[in-house]
């Protein structure tokens, strides 16, 4: 941390791929990342060309547009998450969106994007989101119907009415207690572990 405690990002060695559905938005987004100090920026207006680039080289961040015709931006994210022959299956992906009704947010989440950001994309909005992405610690999930970061941001267990599909999913029903109860300090230690001293 700096002296003021502000978080710092060094993106000078990051490689970023940008896909937008028109030149003006692509230019704005490109300038934002230039301002952030990114030197390696690949910019695309066409999904096909972006997809070829994704197959060839790893990117530290992909920013795609959900406003492309026929949901092509969402489909692009889904394909990146599913393609075996690409080095970006696990890459951080931001989707940016203009008109963002709940259906768009859900579609973005289900496509496998890490996050959706509402336009207009100002430097402050994008820096906040990139900082958030850099701290991302969610696990990756691959199932028949989904590939991407864990859609459960908080551990509330499996969806209501289901047993869950993960080996560490627990039943919502709590069994009878066995063994002694945990003391409050035991519980506190589980939530806020501290290094032992002495």
């Amino acid at each position, binding site marked *: *941390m*700096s002296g*003021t405690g*502000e*978080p*710092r*990002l*060094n*993106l*000078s*060695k*990051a490689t970023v791929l940008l896909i937008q559905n*028109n030149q*003006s*938005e692509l*230019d*704005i987004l490109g*300038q*934002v990342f*230039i*301002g*952030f*100090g990114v030197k390696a920026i690949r910019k695309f207006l066409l999904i096909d060309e972006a997809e070829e680039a994704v197959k060839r080289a*790893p990117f*530290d*961040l992909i920013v795609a547009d959900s*406003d492309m*015709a026929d949901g092509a931006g969402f489909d692009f994210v889904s394909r990146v998450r599913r393609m075996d022959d690409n080095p970006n299956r*696990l*890459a*951080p992906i931001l989707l*940016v969106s*203009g*008109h963002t*009704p709940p259906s768009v947010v859900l579609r973005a989440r289900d496509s496998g994007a890490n996050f959706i950001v509402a*336009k*207009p*994309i*100002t*430097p*402050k909005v994008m*820096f*906040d989101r990139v*900082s958030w*992405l*850099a*701290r*991302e*610690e969610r*696990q*990756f*999930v*691959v*199932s*028949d119907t*989904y590939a991407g970061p864990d859609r459960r941001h908080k551990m509330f267990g499996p969806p209501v009415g289901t047993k869950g*599909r*993960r*080996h*560490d999913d627990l039943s919502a029903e709590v069994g009878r207690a066995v063994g002694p109860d945990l003391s409050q300090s035991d519980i506190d230690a589980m939530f806020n572990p501290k290094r032992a001293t002495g």
Partner: protein
Amino acid sequence: MTKANVFKYENRLAKSLVTKGGMTASEAIRTATAAVEQVRQPTLNEIDATLREIYELGERLRAGADPEALRAMYAAGNRVVAMAGVFGLAELGQAAYSLCELISRLQTSERHNWRMIEVHLDGLRLLRAPDEHSPEHRQAVLAGLRQVATSIG
């Protein structure tokens, strides 16, 4: 239903988090704002071209229902949403967002209502020149547009 495969993975962006060097948020935002400023005029030109496209599509919709024109107007409105707020035209962007919301609701309900579209186009014209109107007037216009758009259930 098969089991999901859940695993930890390396976050490539994590290495950009540093304690020394790089940029703080305020430094990054300052340099990025300066960089974005370089595309101000071309973007304002593009906003005006997009608004003209919206008004021309409006002429088709004045004549009656036209799903293709409505789709094109939605796409154009979305471009204004993306561009306007970056260069001090946030209220214009909000009016464009309201237009997109209206179109989305008209499409879902398979209705056509030219008056509702027309009042949005009037709002866009007014908010393209925000300095010619008081903040209270601009906010009242936006509130009216939102009310119109959300009146379609």
